């Protein structure tokens, strides 16, 4: 048997390939991104990036209509975006196997909430698998494809950060070749007019009964015999934590967590004196078990934390009262992530801070502009939220009889986020006579999740040419007249345009444009660096306020620029009022020049 050490996400991709998968798409989102990224490596599979999660599910569902085995992957909050087609897909069922992967993020390593997406399975009546390691992630994905066809239902697989981004050993199998059936219309099944949908709901309820029977016999739901004093019920990564913390207990391991196997649960309960339910997030299993009236004591969220991630130590302390023994440390500086040296977002936030603008923000690298010293973003809600939020503030201020322009309102959104869900709120703002200024930070890539192409890119994975959606034309197409594309590194111009537009009594859009400094074409070059002359430096702190990781402060409060980190973008040179900063080699390559070359960026684009 061939073995490999794979992450959960690599394993899900492998499972889809082994299971004869044909088509996959996704909008990138941590911790789910690497699933489709890895699927792009299999020549038998067509995999691509979608504009958002809702669209990705609609496309995968369409592919399933035509009999292709399809997969769509998203982070937990992505399923909120895709919830509308998700609920309908449950009624419609699947022709080609349809797998939806939700990667939840307990502990919020890279998310705005820690919602527990198991409820979606229960809510939409879609069967749910939860792997506890990479091998199971692969096997469950593979099997979900044929099960989805057998039971005529989309299949939900829930991973979490510690499944998706943990590596463990996987036994590899071969690919099962499955033919794409081809599209055959089925009006009663796929057109959810009320007359059809009523019948489909009946079908869903009958299907649920069959799935419940399946869950009873499914290999992934099983009792692991141990001592009878303690029984543990656990799902996903919590199973591994609990197995380590309480190794001698009797376990009810559940890989299929909707519908749950009632008879198996009763059998398990009859074998043990007390039940611990170990689960991250909500008391999903616990609520179910407690409602079953099992006649045994059940302990769950009374002791297990509702927030954050679990680990074996937390489980041991919560359930067995074993306190860990460890070294304490004094308070030390934290190390928050920061915008990179040479990041084109930095000058924009620096200017917004100087202008004392009120900024509604959005999701991406640029959310880091909220952190000190840039500290120039008031809100961050969800993908695409910034424009609607700013427009809402404008409305309320105006209703209070105030001039909303006095608040210097700006919505800031990245290029990928704008395509994802920023276009519709801009249409709303424009149509309903809003005047809020929108700044689109266009760095020509989806950067935060590791550089996936988006509609603004003209080349896709493996160099496949793609049609580019021009942001400026798109915005002008909506009808916005005041649209200005400005080089993010031209700080003088940028400040002038932003200051003018935030006072304008008409809607305006500023596109701050510069390629991400981490683009492969940018990254592989060798750059010169900037030097700060300590004799000239007056310790005015202006360059420190850029929050550039290459800039630090010496003991005698002078600027020092780390040559290992600096890419010579020269933004600090522009900021310095006494010309104390200069490039080590003005003739050598630097990130500013590189950016201009890489995008073929020409100044004449400016107005």
């Amino acid at each position: 048997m061939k073995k490999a050490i794979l992450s959960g996400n690599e394993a899900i991709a492998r499972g889809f390939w082994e299971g004869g998968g044909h088509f996959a798409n996704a909008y990138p989102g941590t911790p789910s991104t690497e699933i489709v990224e890895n699927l792009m490596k299999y020549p038998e599979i067509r995999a691509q990036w979608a504009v958002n999660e809702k669209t990705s599910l609609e496309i995968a569902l369409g592919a399933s209509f035509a009999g292709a085995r399809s997969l769509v992957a998203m982070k937990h909050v992505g399923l909120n975006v895709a919830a509308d087609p998700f609920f309908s897909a449950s009624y419609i069922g699947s022709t080609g196997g349809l797998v939806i992967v939700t990667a939840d993020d307990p502990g919020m390593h890279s998310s705005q909430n820690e919602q527990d997406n198991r409820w979606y399975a229960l809510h939409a009546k879609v069967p749910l698998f939860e792997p506890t390691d990479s091998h199971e992630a692969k096997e469950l994905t593979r099997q979900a494809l044929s099960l989805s066809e057998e039971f005529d239902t989309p299949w939900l697989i829930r991973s979490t950060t510690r499944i998706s981004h943990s590596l463990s050993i996987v036994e590899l199998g071969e690919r099962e070749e499955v033919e794409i059936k081809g599209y055959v219309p089925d009006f009663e099944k796929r057109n959810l007019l009320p007359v059809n949908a009523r019948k489909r709901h009946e079908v869903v309820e009958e299907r649920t009964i069959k799935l419940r029977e399946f869950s009873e016999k499914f290999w992934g739901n099983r009792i692991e015999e141990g001592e009878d004093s303690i029984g543990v019920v656990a799902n996903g990564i919590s199973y591994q934590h609990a197995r380590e913390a309480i190794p001698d207990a009797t376990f009810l391991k559940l890989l299929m967590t909707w519908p749950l196997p009632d008879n198996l649960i009763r059998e398990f309960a009859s074998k043990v004196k007390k039940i611990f339910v170990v689960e991250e997030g909500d008391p999903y299993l616990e609520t179910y078990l407690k409602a079953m009236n099992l006649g045994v004591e059940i302990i769950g969220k009374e002791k297990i934390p509702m927030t954050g991630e679990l680990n074996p130590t937390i489980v041991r302390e919560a359930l067995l009262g074993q306190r860990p023994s460890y070294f304490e440390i004094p308070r030390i500086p934290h190390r928050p992530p920061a915008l990179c040296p040479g990041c084109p977002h930095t000058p924009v936030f620096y200017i917004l801070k100087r202008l004392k603008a009120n900024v509604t923000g959005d999701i991406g690298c640029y959310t880091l502009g909220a952190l000190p010293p840039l500290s120039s973003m008031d809100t961050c809600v969800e993908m695409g939220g910034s424009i609607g939020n700013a427009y809402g503030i404008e409305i309320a201020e105006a209703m209070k009889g105030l001039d909303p322009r006095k608040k210097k309102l700006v919505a800031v959104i990245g290029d990928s986020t704008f395509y994802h869900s920023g276009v519709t709120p801009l249409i709303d703002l424009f149509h309903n006579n809003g005047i809020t200024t929108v700044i689109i930070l266009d760095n020509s890539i989806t950067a935060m999740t590791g550089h996936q192409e988006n509609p603004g890119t003209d080349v896709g994975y493996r160099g496949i040419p793609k049609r580019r959606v021009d942001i400026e034309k798109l915005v002008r197409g909506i009808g916005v007249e005041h649209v200005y594309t400005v080089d993010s590194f031209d700080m003088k111009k940028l400040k002038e345009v932003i200051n003018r537009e935030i006072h304008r009594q008409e809607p305006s859009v500023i596109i701050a444009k510069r390629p991400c400094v981490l683009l492969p074409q940018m990254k592989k070059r060798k750059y010169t660096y900037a030097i700060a002359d300590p004799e000239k430096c007056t310790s005015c702190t202006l360059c420190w306020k850029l929050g550039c990781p290459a800039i630090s402060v010496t003991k005698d409060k002078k600027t020092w620029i780390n040559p290992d980190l600096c890419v010579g973008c020269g933004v600090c040179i522009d900021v310095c009022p006494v010309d104390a900063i200069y490039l080590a080699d003005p003739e050598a390559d630097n990130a500013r020049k590189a950016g201009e070359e890489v995008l073929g960026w020409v100044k004449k684009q400016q107005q």
Partner: protein
Amino acid sequence: MGKKTTTVIVAGVGGQGILLASNLLSEAAMEAGYDVKKSEIHGMSQRGGDVISTVRFGEKVYSPIVGLGEADVILAFEKLEAMRNLPYLKKEGMVIVNDYRIDPLPVASGYMEYPEGIIEFLKERVKTIALDARELAEKAGNIRTMNVVLLGVLSKNLDIPEEIWLQVIERRVPPKAIDANKVAFRLGREVAEKAFAGV
């Protein structure tokens, strides 16, 4: 170390090559016949934030992570990160620390001070090997072998044969960097040998 699970926390700053180092360690452990699990955090932490990767190996490994007071070794690429992760170490555990400083943003922008005397702080509490891995990497002929120098030190403290380490390095490192990486690995092992001779 036998049946018991060994836990190594590899800690440092985004961009230091932590994930490559923990991949090499995981692969070496798998080749040596152990069950292996590794966990890491992607996303926000890649933008110059602190990064930790946990590698666990043994006869059968369940959880891919550990809580407070559970790790056997902390392998730190930066000294402030060694200190930050100390609470995860067993009282009888060991710290291998690169005597190298990268200022975090609150220090760089003048809001906070970088703590003095971190190496002494560690040595007072726990078995600590401190080294200048950057200097040794330069000696090996490639500054980017810093992570392999540190793996060399670590390797002396784990039950994984040297040949397996060298095979994994050969397989995973770009062909033209193999020699420098092997030298770096050996330099790291020498540091560990000297440290034990001195005990």
